[in-house]
């Protein structure tokens, strides 16, 4: 992972960032000078009704490199542009400026090489658990034989611990179980990269803890590149190899990138006992506190 913001001097990271773009390792996703502007409302109709708004610069000149087979978390104050960033990588949204590359090719739209886990699960309510996963696999591999299809679906249902719930509809499941389906669906298409936008944001603390450990277990088996947005410092520390800290918006940038040195496979206790744990956690708390306070202050003025 390398990082170069416009003014590297701003970076207050514990891991000093070199200005050179060179990084060791195999870069899979790279963003170069990426900005995103949401167009404001203009035009005579809006002007008459007094509903015009200015253009909004959500993220400004961001550079990120993500190495293959690493788990990267993005953390930052609410509304800073994390989802915007992830949607650009997913191809659901287009960068206003800059280059987004995956394996040397520009990202031009969404595709099954990137599997997405949604915060609100986004399961089709008219399909059972099994059908939701099968729909994904069938869409990506239309020529797969029914027998193989069945195997893939069953394998992933087992992987996330949903055996027995195959024929249930999403609305019969708890939030935690629904997100297991979401994760199984994203993994079943065998993507190069797993993208997760606050996958556990809507869950209670206990369920959240269980699912974090599940993700850790699953990730150790597959070691796919993963990019996860989170608001939880502990979640990021348990799962990630790198943590990207974003500044507040508008014109959000990347503040610093933390290396997480804990050995894998991880468990919560070992992570918390690690000598670097306190320092990293402190660093992240400081960052979030500083940025969030600035957001609140700007809201007051």
């Amino acid at each position: 992972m390398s990082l170069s913001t416009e003014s590297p001097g701003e970076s207050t990271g514990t891991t000093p960032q070199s200005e050179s773009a060179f990084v060791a390792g195999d870069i899979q996703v790279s963003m170069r000078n990426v900005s995103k502007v949401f167009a404001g409302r203009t035009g005579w109709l809006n002007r008459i009704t007094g509903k015009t708004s200015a253009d909004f610069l959500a993220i400004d000149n961001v550079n990120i490199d993500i190495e293959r087979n690493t788990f990267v978390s993005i953390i930052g104050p609410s509304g800073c542009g994390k989802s915007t960033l992830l949607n650009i990588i997913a191809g659901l949204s287009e960068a206003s400026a800059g280059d987004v590359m995956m394996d040397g090719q520009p990202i031009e739209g969404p595709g099954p090489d990137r599997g997405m886990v949604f915060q609100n699960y986004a399961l089709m309510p008219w399909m059972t658990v099994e059908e939701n996963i099968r729909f994904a696999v069938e869409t990506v591999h239309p020529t797969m034989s029914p027998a193989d299809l069945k195997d893939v679906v069953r394998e992933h249902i087992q992987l996330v611990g949903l055996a027995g719930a195959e024929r249930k509809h999403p609305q019969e499941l708890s939030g935690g179980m629904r997100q297991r389906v979401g994760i199984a669906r994203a993994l079943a298409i065998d993507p190069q990269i797993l993208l997760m936008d606050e996958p556990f944001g809507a869950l209670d603390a206990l369920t959240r803890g269980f699912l974090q450990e599940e993700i850790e277990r699953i990730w150790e088996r597959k070691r796919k590149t993963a990019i996860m947005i989170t608001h939880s410092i502990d979640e990021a520390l348990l799962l990630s190899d790198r943590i990207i800290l974003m500044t507040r918006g508008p014109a959000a940038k990347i503040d610093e990138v933390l290396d997480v040195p804990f050995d894998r496979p991880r468990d919560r206790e070992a992570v918390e006992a690690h000598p670097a744990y306190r320092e990293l956690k402190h660093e992240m708390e400081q960052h979030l506190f500083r940025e969030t306070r600035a957001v609140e202050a700007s809201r007051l003025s």
Partner: protein
Amino acid sequence: MPTSAMQRARKKQRRGEIDENVRAIGLFVLSLVIFLGFWEIGARSGWFSKGMPTASLTLQELWWWVTNPFFNNGPNDLGIGWNLLVSLRRVAIGYLAASLIAVPLGILIGISPVASKAFNPYVQLLKPVSPLAWLPIGLYLFRDSEKTGIFIIMISSIWPTLVNTAFGVANVSKDYLNVAKTLGASQWRTVTRVIIPAALPNIIAGLRISMGIAWLVIVAAEMLLGTGLGYFIWNEWNNLYIPNILVAIIVIGFVGILLDQMFAYAERAVSFGGKSE
């Protein structure tokens, strides 16, 4: 929870439901008795206008018509069953044709903003027009009461289905569409496997309203057409025999309930147990 406690809770809940239903039926029967009694006494003692039939005579007529539905002594003396079948046939054909147009067109309008803007003026202009305004046009075009009836049903039952389908399709959750996009689903697959199932509750709701309108309109249209339940009423009006008009109203109401309940059942079947996610 121990099973005995669960059984007790279930029994208690069921007793509550039975209790409620018993009381509702009791109230219904009571109000019906009061209504019929008031009608009977009022008609006998001349509280209403002069020709007002009594409740007992009306019920006798109802019984007679329902037990002798299928006789045929010429167009002005036809069993109510035949008339009902004639009306149902017109509704079925006109409604089916309307649905076959409205659902695909609604899907197109819901998906494509261009189609939506292009076709919206037609919908807005024609939707509020009373179906009976089309009657002279239909008669002039087809010179045939049967085809005119079907035409009127079609043109009046197209709009609710069209509008509801377009609304449902346009408002399919962005999340489902994003899922389809990230999977790289084709346009066809997205429409058939995601958009249509997601919009189905709205489509069925539109079909249900359309059916209600078709059943409302057929009676009115048939008064001017020559057969069917509407004509039955018109004919009895010409005979000045009010009890048979009341009989027809009751029959029309009951058939309307049956038709509506079919769609209510379909609606429940596609509502994915409380919607969302």
